[in-house]
């Protein structure tokens, strides 16, 4: 029920087309890269998917994160313009379930976006690296790992977006966070685990270091922690507005 309302609100904001467009744009990176510099990648050797991800994932992940930032700002922008938020408070709907509905929609759209990107990557792998076959299980593992790494970023960004009435403040904070975590040293495990920098990580590299379990646990913990923070924020805000 609630996700349906949330989806209806987003209908004319261009939320869904924006995610699809961004997925195609991110998918264009490996295609263009392969078309232009085919030889240098083919000579690298190794698993085709790993070669492609190592070459392109930094850019693709950055695009994904930026889109999540914009999307979260947009979701709350529609609520705050024309005081939609106050009207929602009058309805017999829990504030927390509205937040979770938004989180659900953002996660579904992210999953769709990642699926498109990984199918393009798989297409590249099959088209250019014709001699080796692609294992669909490995593809699904990579996809789900990247998805779980993005979850804390999605929920933290929604938390930031709901805290500020003006879109440019939440967008500004989001972009500053993207920037700050992109210049922090990613080799250090602590910084790599943070939201906004975990999505840059690749399953292969994390697996080689033996940190897969740690990364998944921390992502789940962070997601729960931010959800809890949001619930507390809503309780406090009710006393002041």
């Amino acid at each position, binding site marked *: 029920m609630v996700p349906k309302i949330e989806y209806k609100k987003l209908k004319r904001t261009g939320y869904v087309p*924006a995610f699809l467009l961004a997925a195609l744009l991110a998918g264009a*990176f490996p295609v263009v890269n392969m078309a232009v510099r085919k030889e240098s990648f083919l000579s690298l050797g190794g698993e085709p998917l790993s070669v492609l991800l190592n070459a392109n994932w930094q850019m693709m992940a950055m695009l994904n994160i930026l889109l999540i930032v914009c999307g979260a*700002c*947009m979701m709350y922008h529609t609520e705050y313009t024309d005081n939609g938020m106050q009207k929602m408070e009058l309805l017999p709907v829990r504030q927390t379930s509205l937040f979770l509905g938004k989180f659900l929609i953002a996660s579904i759209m992210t999953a769709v976006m990642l699926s498109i990107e990984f199918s393009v990557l798989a297409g590249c792998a099959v088209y250019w690296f014709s001699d080796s076959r692609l294992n669909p299980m490995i593809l699904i593992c990579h996809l789900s790992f990247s998805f779980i790494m993005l979850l804390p970023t999605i929920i933290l960004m929604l938390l930031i977006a709901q805290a500020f009435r003006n879109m*440019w*403040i939440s*967008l*500004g904070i989001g*972009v500053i966070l993207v920037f700050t975590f992109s210049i922090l040293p990613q080799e250090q495990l602590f910084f790599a685990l943070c939201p906004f920098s975990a999505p840059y990580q690749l399953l292969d590299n994390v697996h080689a270091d033996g940190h897969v379990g740690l990364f998944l646990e921390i992502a789940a913990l962070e997601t729960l922690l931010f959800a809890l923070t949001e619930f507390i924020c809503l309780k406090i805000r009710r006393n002041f507005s």
Partner: protein
Amino acid sequence: MNFFSLISIEIKKIRRSKIFLILLAPVILMWLPAIINSGKLTKIQDISILPAHNFFIQGFMGMVWFMIPATLIICTVLLTQTERLNHSILKMLSLPVNSGLLCLAKFTVLLILPAIQMFLSIGVYYLSAYISSRMQEYDFVLPLSYSLPAIGKFYLAALPAAAVFWMISTLIQTPIFSAGLSLAACVPSVLMINTDYWCLHPMSYPFYVLMIEYGKAAKGVYETSIDWLPWIPAAIIITGVCLIVSCAKFGYKERK
């Protein structure tokens, strides 16, 4: 109303927007890793670059390739959204003011905000260079005659990108598309400056200027002189076309 009073009105409108904090935060944040890593810079031997230049360039790297264009985008969102909220743009358009002039006044404010950020970054650079010098007992402070022209060039190189972002935000009313498209356009600049077509991509101009500075300081990293010829005409044409289009189309949706 003349142009200057329009600009002063636009500045008054954003007085309480807290944009100053958003301009200040990245400037401070970008120098923290630089101060922490300053110890490593004095030990690098493999490329022939002075640690002081390396400190300056590494510190500004993240700022120039991503944060200057991103700041411009945030300021565009600020300038367009303050007026769309409560339909105040309708009131502005009903005044006896040339709408093209109004558009140019807003664009000028869009240029003033990053200029403030550049001045802040000069201040924070000298502060962090001083702190690092005290920590490492090595003089990281570069003279103003080096840093001022360099930062001025980064700023000037960002102007065509500002015009492009401004045009995108006047043409596309949906905020997610205008901000998202502009942000997405910044991402490939690392790839673009290594191709021959970089002058068609205004978001990579500041990064190109920085890489030229890097090439001058460390031999062999990048080219050492700026290719003025395809760049300046391309930049002027892009800026001009974007400004003309945005002035002509400013407020067209509200007027319908």
